[in-house]
């Protein structure tokens, strides 16, 4: 608790510190590559015959996904707090890579915990982290995926809390993480809102984003929350079926529970044991969901739908061939939803899809699952 309170205090101070904000903004711009473009997907729009589709290109950010927004923010906080050791959990590896990147940039020792199942399916990222100087520790317990990596990272943190900062990668965990991580990703929606107003002179009818822990989605949703006519759609991992253990759709079959310091919707069994989950995309393969998403869903402000493994794979190929963009399998879930939604919308309407990451890390999985002639 003391570490969480210290973190909250430092974060609140940094929020009000103009020099901190200026330095973060400068790094986001000159190092990470912000602002990211909002791209009009003309061919995809024509193909679907409905709403105009715009793609928010977080995949063009340095390291290949939105994760670095949060890593830069927390990295600067670590500097402020005078700590020198950073640990992180990672699912698909993108957060691990972004953390290793920022640690190399700022000069911190870096240890990343990753489930051994995830290490196998996201090999490229494991190599990248090690090349960047991070130690990657495989986690063998439980399902050997994201939640188990988080358990191990938390164990390290409570043991080394005096010297170490836990750079959590999504809007999960105990306070202040869900709020802080969301704040660091708000830039996505802030940019998109200004960009769409400039491009179309009006707000979108809908925004679609994939939801694992929920960082890229809350990042793009947040600045549109007050625009009540903008529909917010989060896409969860529908996996390979509806039975518990075959998917990671928390709002389909999950119920309120406490996991890893957060009270939110959790996929669990009747005894309160946390369920195993499945998704072809490592980054969505998590049994709980950011509490802010739970609140948005319960209030009706946002809705959450699943997309299956098969639909995500299909969407990947379609986007690659229609717009020349290979999305990460996580982001492909959002694309899968726009394929269903856009044709039902008017041609005068606009929909924005958050492409949260690029698909290079998933080449291995795509090769296993797609027949490319």
């Amino acid at each position, binding site marked *: 608790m*003391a570490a969480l309170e210290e973190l909250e205090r430092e974060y609140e101070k940094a929020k009000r510190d103009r020099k901190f904000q200026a330095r973060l903004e400068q790094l986001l711009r000159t190092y990470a590559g912000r602002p990211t473009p909002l791209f009009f997907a003309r061919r995809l729009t024509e193909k679907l015959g409905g709403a105009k589709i715009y793609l928010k290109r977080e995949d063009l950010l340095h390291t290949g996904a939105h994760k670095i927004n949060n890593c830069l923010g927390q990295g600067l906080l670590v500097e402020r707090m005078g700590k020198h050791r950073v640990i992180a959990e990672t699912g698909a590896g993108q957060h691990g890579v972004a953390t290793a990147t920022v640690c190399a940039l700022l000069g911190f020792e870096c240890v990343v915990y990753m489930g051994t199942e995830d290490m196998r399916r996201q090999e490229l990222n494991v190599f990248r982290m090690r090349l960047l100087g991070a130690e990657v520790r495989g986690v063998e317990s*439980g399902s050997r995926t994201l939640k188990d990596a988080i358990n191990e990272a938390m164990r390290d943190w409570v043991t080394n809390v005096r010297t170490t900062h836990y750079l959590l990668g999504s809007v999960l965990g105990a306070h202040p993480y869900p709020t802080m991580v969301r704040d660091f990703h708000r830039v996505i929606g802030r940019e998109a809102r200004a960009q769409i107003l400039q491009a179309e002179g009006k707000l979108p009818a809908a925004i679609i984003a994939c939801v694992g822990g929920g960082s890229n989605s809350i990042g793009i949703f947040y600045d549109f929350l007050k625009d009540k006519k903008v529909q917010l759609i989060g896409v969860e991992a529908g996996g390979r079926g509806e039975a518990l253990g075959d998917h990671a759709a928390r709002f389909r079959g999950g119920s309120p*529970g406490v*996991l890893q310091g957060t009270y939110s919707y959790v996929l669990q069994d009747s005894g*309160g*044991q*946390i369920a195993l989950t499945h998704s072809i995309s490592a980054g969505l393969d998590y049994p709980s969901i950011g509490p802010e998403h739970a609140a948005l869903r319960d209030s009706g402000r946002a809705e959450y739908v699943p997309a299956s493994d098969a639909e995500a794979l299909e969407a990947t190929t379609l986007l690659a061939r229609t717009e020349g963009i290979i999305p990460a399998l996580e982001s492909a879930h959002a694309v899968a939803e726009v394929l269903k939604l856009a044709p039902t919308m008017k041609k005068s309407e606009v929909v924005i899809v958050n492409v949260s990451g690029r698909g290079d890390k998933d080449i291995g999985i795509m090769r296993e699952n797609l027949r490319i002639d």
Partner: protein
Amino acid sequence: MPLTFYRKPGLVVYVTCGDPDLDTTREIVLATIEAGADVIELGVPFSDPVADGPVIQRASERALKRETSLGQVLTLAAEVRQHAQSTGLIVFSYLNPILRMGMDKFCKVARAAGVDGALITDLPVEEAGEYLRAMRAHDLAPVFLAAPTSPDERLKRIAAASRGFVYAVSRTGVTGARHQLADDARKLVRRLRRVTKLPIALGFGISTAEQFAEVGEFADAVVVGSSIVETVERNRGREAAAVGEFVRELSAVSPQMSAHSR
């Protein structure tokens, strides 16, 4: 039955229920009581034991493979209570299984089973409002963990909410036997004494008679967990006997012991 330490220092023993199975756990618990334990912490296995090291992680996995549940642990508590009238029984669990059962239902069933209190590993005192109300309504003692990194203000809050005893964690980290007791331990107990009159039990990492005696000098009770669980793991087929021997060896250096009825 109020939580009482008859020995000095008192002995609190943690076991993971269901490892290797519930019948064996019952035998282990009874052997431990026979060997002089004042309080038993009945550990409920959880899928994501974030505060536990590898020994208790493994035990939890084994217990979960047999589908050991919170309900079964409460039934076990009732069975133990039939044989041991004066031993303190605490349910030691992560929050989610209890939430799933329902806070009130849990307290009701626990009380009826003869349980004295509970310790919820991942429920900080700041979030414990509903829990404290339910526990008080059913005359159960809420036990909380105090860490070396807790500032004085927080120790005060923890002490105020606690009943029965305060569980002082000897060092930053997760459960697991260690060779040396850290300096953190004495300091923490000293700071706690300034804010509570409740007995203070110290745990995490205690596995030898020397450590037991050392802790006994400044704490009111000693908690042993991982070393018990490891003894169970290493003595297949004679778990209860092995644990009984281990507990007797561990607490042999204890200076005072008064007779108590069973």
